[in-house]
């Protein structure tokens, strides 16, 4: 084992002095100290800094994924009456309880919620730390930087317009649209394999009813669960479709289920819910809304 070489006694003094002398020259003569004089100067924070939340009202669909994922339970959905957007639900955040983990921004399916670089959030009153949706609203914030999550243009289906003509399935060069029959409704629904889709937009061009449109879809960091319909329990009330923030549930009539009324006339047929999974954000509001146990989400127990 080699003995450790001890420095000479002059080196103990002169080496540190050389080091500090260089430092002194750098800070006093050739430059300035690295200190940031805080109230006057502020640090250039990186874009990934996690400060106060900023919400784009126009992009937000009010799905509540941020509220669900928040580990400190510091977000909530609040009803807002917006002159432009009408009656909507948007999340608020309690900065006093927030741990700034950024999960809310990551889980947001439409990238409406961002963590901004604002960090001067202190307040003398605890109540003022509860920021309502209007406090965190900034619709222009998303345009100030390049979004980190990848964006794709994907066709989305408006099932109420679709007639099941199969033209889109025939046109797709990647063969990623399959016409699937929907149970008990004698209709077919195009199901798009989003993993294979290369955004050629030919299906959109060919659709005679303009039921398909290209929309921006952001990649998701999370594997969101999809709801499953138990058809026998479905009463066709339509509560799930009204609750769905992304309009992914359509109520379709089931022919042959009409009740015969008095006088021989036939009543309206029963309806059932049909999911368009390409649009689903996995928020689980349909699951909460259904009173007949007709919707279940795998892995979630009531």
């Amino acid at each position, binding site marked *: 084992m080699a003995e450790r070489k001890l420095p000479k*006694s002059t080196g*103990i*003094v002169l080496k*540190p*002095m050389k*080091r*500090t*002398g260089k*430092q*002194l020259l750098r*800070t*006093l003569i050739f430059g300035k*100290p*690295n*200190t940031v*004089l805080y109230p006057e100067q502020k640090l250039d924070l990186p874009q990934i800094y996690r400060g106060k939340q900023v919400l784009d009202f126009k992009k937000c669909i009010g799905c509540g994924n941020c509220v669900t994922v928040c580990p400190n339970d510091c977000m909530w959905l609040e009803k807002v009456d917006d002159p432009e957007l009408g009656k909507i639900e948007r999340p608020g955040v309690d900065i006093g309880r927030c741990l700034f983990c950024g999960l809310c921004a990551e889980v947001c399916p439409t990238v409406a919620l961002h963590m901004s670089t604002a960090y001067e959030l202190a307040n003398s009153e605890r109540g003022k730390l509860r920021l309502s949706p209007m406090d965190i609203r900034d619709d222009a914030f998303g345009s100030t930087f390049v979004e980190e999550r990848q964006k794709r243009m994907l066709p989305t289906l408006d099932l109420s317009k679709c007639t099941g003509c199969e033209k889109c399935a025939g046109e797709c060069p990647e063969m990623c649209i399959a016409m699937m029959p929907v149970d008990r409704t004698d209709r077919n629904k195009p199901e798009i394999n989003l993993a294979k889709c290369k955004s050629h937009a030919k299906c959109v061009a060919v659709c005679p009813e303009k039921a398909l449109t290209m929309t921006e879809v952001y990649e998701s960091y999370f594997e969101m669960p999809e709801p499953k319909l138990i058809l026998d329990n479905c009463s066709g009330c339509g509560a799930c479709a009204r609750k769905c923030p992304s309009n992914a549930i359509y109520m379709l009539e089931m022919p042959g289920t009409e009740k015969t009324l008095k006088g021989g006339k036939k009543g309206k047929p029963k309806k059932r819910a049909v999911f368009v999974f390409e649009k689903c954000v996995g928020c689980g509001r349909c699951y909460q809304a259904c009173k007949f146990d007709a919707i279940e989400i795998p892995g979630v127990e009531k």
Partner: protein
Amino acid sequence: MNLFEFCYGILHWLVDLVNNLWYWLGDFLPWYFGDFFTAVGDFAASDGHLTFMTILLESVVIIVVALINVLNFLWIFRKLSGRILDFYGPYYVGYRIGGWLQNLADGMKLFIKEIIVPTKADRLGFLLAPVIFVASSLVILSVIPLSVNFGLSTNESGEYVSAGALFALAAFSIAPFAILLAGWSSNNKYTLIGGMRSAAQMMSYEIPLILCAASVFLLAGSFNFVDIVDAQHDVWFLIPLFIGFVVFLICLIAEVEIIPFDLPEAEAELVEGWTTEYGGMRFGLFYMTTAVRSYAGGALATAFFLGGWQGPSFIPDEIWFLIKAYIVYTVFMWLTWSVPRVRIDQMLGLGWKRLLPLAMLNLLIAAALKSGGWF
């Protein structure tokens, strides 16, 4: 014109002015009061009284000049510590002059704080220790002249205290007693350890310090500052006595108690050591007195080894002296913010095993030079 003549002139003019008024007042009074007035006026104008007052005025002038320098020293201390450790140092108070007013602001803040004496402390010793510490440090300044004309003298010939250097060194080493007194009377284990360390430390550095000074006295052949500086007219003592200079500087750092040897107030181990129980302006006085002692130490090193006020004549002598003292102090500060504190056993080992033999060697060199006839 030296400082004595200057102060004497001012006082003479002032006494004449006042006496005119005084005698004029006396004219309105009955004769027995008038005689008393005249006697008082004559005493005020007498030479003995004027000389005494002149010496007082001189000491005031010298201490005010020294304290202005001390403010500069404190500013250098804080500014250098900041820049070496990569932050700004004093900045906002006195923004245009580099934060120079920060120390005044801190002093004002300390002035309005309460003086707290611990219940079980020895009250007399506790209150007396800062007085001894500050007074013994300020009295060093009185014998150190900044030039031939700027120093405390007792008559118009401008001769200074004949054993001034010896007196300065003696006054310098009173401080450990004040520290020991403060440490003992505070009734606190940290302060006591700090005071004892100060005494132990003094044992180790004082002897090499005095030996180095002795070699200077040997070469100069005098204890007087003016003679010592005059002896360095041709060559500074720095060159023949370089070993002595280095040893002297190291001992001065120990004497002033700044960081590599600030064992009595090791703030990490001893919670500011012997100043633990002191607050308010008493602490401020200790803080200031450290700078006073640094100033005195720099002045001693300048006078003994760096040629005093010798230098090209385009700068006044006093300024030369101060420039050299400032350089010595800056080197002290540079060292302070570079090296860690030594342990007490390392301190004693350094003092007895390294510095003392080197100081003896230095004294031998001085003796050889003197007997060889070079000086």
